[in-house]
């Protein structure tokens, strides 16, 4: 009897003990780091130092950048003031894939496009070239202009289905050529880019190579891995394709431009793309703000960085008098090439 009682008491004690520790999962991990401006600044600077991919290409001395900005941080500053200091520090990376997002603002560096002429006028495209009876296939808007199929793709963030590609290939069957207009397309999902590029080749091909930061040292990168365009399995277009780009063609659109540049059937017209060759990785600061930055490098087959933009075969700007007259000089050049 005494043993039974002892067993029951032991069991009850044990379960009560368990009940107490079962609410302590959180306390058994170390607590969150501090959120003073200095601690937040140090955390951000460190992570960029360890994982950013383009210090060497851009010849940025990140330690010198720290010395400049750390002087501006003090623990009594407001969160808006801290945000401004961090944003200015990140601005030095000259990278459109670098942002700092807080509940009240999002920092960015858009000089890769803002310091250049736009060379794209959506109003002219809508009124003069697409008109009223254009087709819409998913994210693609297309119209036959002088027996050339003009396809306008605004953002690679919009999903492209194979049916959408089939629709343009069907319309392109009897066309003299195809124009893919990705000017001011700021990028999105790379899958959409290589699915579209794959519709203009009957053979898969390599268009570049990529590597990722895999350690904190400056040359800690993975090996280079080939980037390939897979040929579309359900048929492709065998005629000439002209791709229109401008400085606002960025990120996945830069990749798309290079995919097409390596296609012997394609001609690039317009301006060098804006770059955006590094895949952005995200992080969170101790104060909950989110930041992102480029963590990969991509090279063309000529060993040029995608980050620097993809050059075109035919450089054309939008002529101001043409624009005033409702004409798109770059698109007109493409149409002439295909006549």
């Amino acid at each position, binding site marked *: 009897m005494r043993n039974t009682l002892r067993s029951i008491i032991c069991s009850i004690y044990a379960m009560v003990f368990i009940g107490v520790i079962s609410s302590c*999962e959180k306390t058994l991990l170390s607590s*969150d780091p501090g959120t003073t401006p200095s601690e937040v600044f140090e955390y951000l600077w460190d992570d960029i130092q360890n994982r950013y991919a383009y210090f060497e290409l851009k010849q940025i001395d990140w330690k010198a950048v720290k010395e400049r900005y750390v002087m501006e941080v003090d623990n009594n500053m407001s969160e808006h003031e801290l945000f401004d200091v961090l944003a200015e520090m990140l601005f030095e990376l000259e990278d459109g894939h670098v942002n700092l997002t807080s509940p009240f603002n999002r920092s960015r560096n858009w000089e890769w496009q803002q310091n250049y002429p736009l060379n794209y006028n959506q109003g002219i495209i809508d009124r003069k070239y697409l008109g009223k009876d254009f087709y819409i296939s998913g994210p693609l808007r297309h119209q036959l202009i002088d027996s050339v199929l003009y396809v306008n793709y605004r953002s690679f963030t919009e999903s492209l289905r194979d049916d959408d590609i089939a629709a343009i290939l069907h319309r392109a069957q009897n066309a003299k050529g195809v124009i893919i207009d990705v000017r001011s397309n700021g990028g999105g999902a790379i899958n959409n880019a290589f699915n579209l590029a794959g519709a203009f080749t009957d053979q898969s091909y390599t268009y570049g190579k990529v590597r990722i930061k*895999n350690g904190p040292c400056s040359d800690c990168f993975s090996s280079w891995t080939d980037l390939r365009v897979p040929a579309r399995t359900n048929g492709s277009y065998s005629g000439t394709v002209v791709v229109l780009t401008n400085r606002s063609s960025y990120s996945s659109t830069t990749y798309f431009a290079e995919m097409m540049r390596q296609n012997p059937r394609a001609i690039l017209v317009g301006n060098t793309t804006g770059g955006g060759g590094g895949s952005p990785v995200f992080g*969170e600061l101790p104060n909950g703000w989110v930041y992102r930055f480029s963590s990969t490098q991509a090279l063309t087959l000529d060993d040029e960085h995608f980050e620097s933009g993809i050059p075109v075969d035919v450089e054309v700007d939008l002529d101001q008098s043409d624009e005033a007259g409702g004409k798109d000089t770059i698109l007109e050049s493409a149409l002439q090439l295909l006549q």
Partner: protein
Amino acid sequence: MHRFILCLFIFIGFLPEFLAQNHSIFVGGGLRSDALRDEGYSPLLFDGLGLSALLGYEKKSEKRETLWLLNFSQSRTTNSFGRELKATSVGLLNLNFYPRKENKISWGWSNSNGLQHRFITGFDNFNGRTDVFTSFGPAVKYNLPFTFKNQSFSFQAVSHFQILGFYLPSGYTSSLPKGFGYEPNGALRGFWESLYLFYPGGAFNAALWPKLQWHLSSGNSLSLNYIYEYTRLTGAKLHARSTGMWLMTLSMKLK
């Protein structure tokens, strides 16, 4: 036909051993409380609740007790700023004890295998991170049977501590282990290049599993379990996880 005969011989060969043992399976489910930190995403701690399901098989003979435990869990965690991280895990635990009649404590060894996947919301790239580990270490079991109002109960506490093994964590930046994705490797070389040694100081996995068991007259039993598990993998980026699960299980005797 000869395959059938071969199978029959194998079955007959193992039959005496099978008959000399007690076999039972158990199923269960319950709530879990998760706290975790993955420095590949954030220095902040995420915590929250989730659900766990358990499937087990136990084999007991006079000299040896073996337990296989398959556990599937999902939980939704948030950090102090409201960012959400979904954690999914699958674990397969094998425990082996060598009991002695006069002793309430039995010692043995364990093999712990885990796959832990995390998905953070609001990050457009590299938003999934996964770790896989397998390790071996000692295990201990304490068993205290007692009766209360003519019903048979027992209090059991099992613990294991992992010493040696290997693990494949997500990469320094990438979601995939470092030997995959951005490396032009085949599966075998990628696996080899992604391996980290699991050893005390480098990685940690241990669990404490007390349970109160009510033995029914049919030979089956009902248990209230609490499983606490701590895992720390210091791969390319630290991932630490502290989990407590409250589970009800029903154990059914096969023989």
